[in-house]
């Protein structure tokens, strides 16, 4: 069976469990409605313009935050990885800032930007940035010593080394970092909307929650999940292109 079929089968299994579990009383159907009811709620919601606006806002926040986080994470990661002194100086601060929950930043961003998309973007960037940065740092440290010596001997300058040696070595890590960051960014976009009240799916979820509209809450959550699945499909496609040489990818394509 090919990959896509298996993937769809996996999702179908998941949906089926979601349908059966409440029906046989494994979870209370009133608070965890079966898949079919969620689907109906989703279909109803999809007929409203409000839903599509919210979806657009969330995707916008997400994409913007993710893009900033990835670029910043990669640039700073490669810089810190390539210049050990910078890392020695900043590592303790990084370790200190990293675990500060993005939730704790909510009052701060509200003060700065109010309930706007900008608030949420800041949260998204803050959370996703660390994911990328850390992966890049580890990736940069993974350069093969023989390959590094080769680059040094053949007079590759700092930039050429980054471009042709450090970057390709770190790339598998970066791809994982982006995949991690993509969902963290999505989570933070929705959470931010939920808590800060900036427009988007998160806000709709909160409104639905406060309105006791249980199937609608699940329908909106499903949309979040599907966005995550789409993001993964996209990063996997990118991975197959840019990491064609990597053992992880080529062994799968080959036999």
């Amino acid at each position, binding site marked *: 069976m090919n990959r896509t079929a298996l993937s769809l089968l996996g999702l179908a299994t998941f949906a089926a469990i979601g349908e059966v579990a409440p029906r046989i009383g494994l979870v209370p159907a009133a608070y965890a409605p079966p898949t079919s009811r969620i689907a109906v709620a989703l279909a109803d919601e999809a007929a409203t313009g409000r839903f599509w606006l919210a979806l657009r806002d969330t995707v916008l926040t997400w994409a913007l935050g993710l893009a900033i986080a990835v670029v910043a994470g990669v640039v700073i990661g490669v810089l810190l990885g390539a210049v050990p002194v910078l890392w020695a100086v900043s590592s303790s601060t990084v370790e200190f800032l990293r675990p500060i929950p993005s939730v704790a930043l909510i009052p701060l961003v509200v003060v700065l930007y109010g309930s706007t998309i900008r608030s949420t973007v800041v949260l998204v960037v803050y959370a996703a940035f660390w994911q990328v940065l850390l992966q890049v740092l580890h990736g940069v440290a993974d350069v093969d010593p023989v390959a590094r010596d080769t680059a040094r001997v053949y007079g590759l300058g700092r930039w050429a080394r980054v471009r042709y040696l450090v970057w390709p070595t770190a790339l598998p890590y970066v791809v994982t970092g982006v995949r991690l960051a993509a969902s963290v960014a999505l989570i933070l976009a929705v959470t931010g909307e939920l808590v800060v*009240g900036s427009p988007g799916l998160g806000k709709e979820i909160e409104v639905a929650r406060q309105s*006791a509209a249980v199937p609608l809450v699940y329908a909106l959550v499903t949309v979040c999940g599907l966005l995550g699945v789409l993001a993964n499909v996209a990063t996997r496609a990118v991975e197959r292109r840019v990491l064609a040489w990597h053992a992880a990818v080529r062994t799968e394509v080959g036999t």
Partner: protein
Amino acid sequence: GSSPDKPSTPGQPDAVDVGVIAIVDVAPIYLGKQQGFFSKRNINLNLTTAQGGAAIVPGVVSGQYQFGFSNTLSLLVATEKGVPVKAVCNGNTSTGKDGEDFGGLFVKAGSPITSPKDLVGKTVATNTLKNIVELSVRASVKKAGGDPAGVKFTELPFPDMLPALQAGRVDGVFVVEPFQAAAVAAGAKKIASSFVDLAGNLTISMYFTSKQLATSNPDLVARFTEAMKESLAYAESHPDDVRTVLGTYTQISAEVRAKLTLPKFPADIDKASVQSVGDQAQSLGLLTKAPDLNLLP
């Protein structure tokens, strides 16, 4: 529009941001906006929803919102902690009628608990600890002859209370509309209208602004207050319009909207109830001093 911090430019509407929560309690402001009570006072109203008062108060103080909506006890606590806020008018009020309020203390169908005093030694869910709901439930227990100190409170968001109650994770919950309607539908038993037990016409929440805006632009604050009062009065006298407007900013289904109990929307704050809330909060240690009623307009 012009910057709301300075006196308004003649002929230009003031852009005013208000932080609210997307719940039943704020229906009047949506209704007032719809009815044009704000625009006719040259206010271009923009309503933003946040998850709770915790996010709204900083927003108002920092000037991100000009006005906000928060519960009475939170505002009293904030004032005591030196947060520069100033109430401008009432938000919503309990109906004052025992058994017919818009919120209540519920136990599971078939539970042996019949009175709040039976909750001693049991666990009750409140939306936020050490806030107005907890205070109200304590009042109910006390009134029924129990010792509130013996009740264990745990914090759960309103939407998650009913599932927890049904699954037996907690023994009692205090919910407001629309969860009250859901609780009734699920067969839960209402054993008290705790807001009523806390104080007569309990002012549950208020609209407020920052002290800074109150001094720098009293004209705007006055116009907002007037418009807000008109909205409250309108909501009070047009319950069907309230039920309709709920459909625009919440996702409460039409059937539930038709049935749910609405709070009261008097224009004025019931000072006595605020005093009473403050006193009881003080006796519980939530406030260290007597309530500072300078908060009120």
